[in-house]
């Protein structure tokens, strides 16, 4: 008797699988915009430093975190793309999307916490 393990497929219909294709496209756009924001943030920081304000360093750090977030989002988008393209293993890729998103939101939380700290200081002083 052949060995039976847990199925690697979600057994989806082609129209159900389209969810993953759409998700991958939107995620790529989000990643692209995060890269754009990261670049703008770094430029803002550098300009501020050249104008004599060391507060620009914080913008560079935020830019770095945005860049990493964008990379994680791009990885999640790739997994979503595979979930659409490889029906036999779509379950693995679907859960990889969720795993990547958990990492993405951890980074975003760190970014939010840093932003909150900076803004709280700005409001108080």
């Amino acid at each position: 008797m052949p060995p039976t393990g847990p199925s690697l497929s979600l057994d989806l219909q082609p129209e159900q699988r389209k969810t993953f294709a759409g998700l991958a496209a939107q995620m790529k756009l989000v990643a692209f915009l995060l890269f754009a924001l990261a670049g703008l943030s770094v430029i803002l920081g550098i300009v501020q430093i050249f104008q004599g304000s060391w507060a620009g360093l914080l913008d560079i750090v935020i830019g770095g975190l945005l860049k990493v977030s964008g990379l994680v989002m791009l990885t999640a988008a790739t997994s979503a793309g595979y979930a659409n393209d490889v029906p036999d293993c779509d379950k693995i890729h679907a859960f990889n999307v969720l795993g990547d998103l958990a990492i993405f939101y951890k980074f975003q939380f760190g970014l939010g916490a840093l932003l909150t700290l900076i803004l709280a200081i700005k409001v108080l002083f």
Partner: protein
Amino acid sequence: MSASTHDPANEDSAQVDLGGRLLVLGLMLMLVIESLLATAALIQLSFVHVVIGIVSICVALYLSNWIYTGDRPARKVLLGWTGLQIFLAGGAVLAYFAAHGEHESMRVFGIAAPTNGTAISLAVVKLGCYLFLGYLLSQSASVKNFLRVKAGREPHAIEPASIAPSGVVVATADKDKRAVAEVGTWMQATGLILIVAGLLSVIAGARHASRIYLIEGALIAVLGAVMLGPVGVLRQLSPDQLDRAFLLSAFGQLKALYKKQVAILGGLAIVAVVMLVMLFR
């Protein structure tokens, strides 16, 4: 609801408990901001505003006690009070900007404070607190269920009603279970912290009379708020017995979220370009 997803009794009890906590948080925020406004008026020695502040605290205390009984009219009266306060706080913020950062213009909307910064901060925080309370009273299913239970009625079942369970349970490895459990939690935490950051940016923008910080703050707060949308569906996914239809619905919700996120991030990118241009001027 399929047996393959949750224990409905436990789920309902947890939701009612959450509703109670959220309502207490909303009511506490209302009392805190009303107390702060009365204190600011006292420091400013504005007799009329001190009286308004004391009356507001009394009304807020009375309404808080009344709504906790679950009485249906109490919710409507508190919603009306919340609407009035949102109108006053919003009017105060608009008046401040119309008067080019002069806090005296906010007195007619019930805000008297010693400095421009304090006045606009109080107005923005008041607006945020009452918007939060208004959201809880009008939109939150958990809070509505908490009030139903308090009034001695049965809570409505909270479930992804529009999604029919497929009955197909997706087997998950430990790593996948962790991912399912973590993504909703971290998304909720991120949404909440972005709302706080957005409100702080709005306050900073208002204090420095900078419209660009104001817009940036509003966009960040909206980004946080839309992030909370799919959290309900994601947190209802049971890692141990995962129905395929619910899993697909969660991915559909994520797709809708990223569509909105693209628009908001585009707005933030435009704000960043404007900031860069302003640095060179």
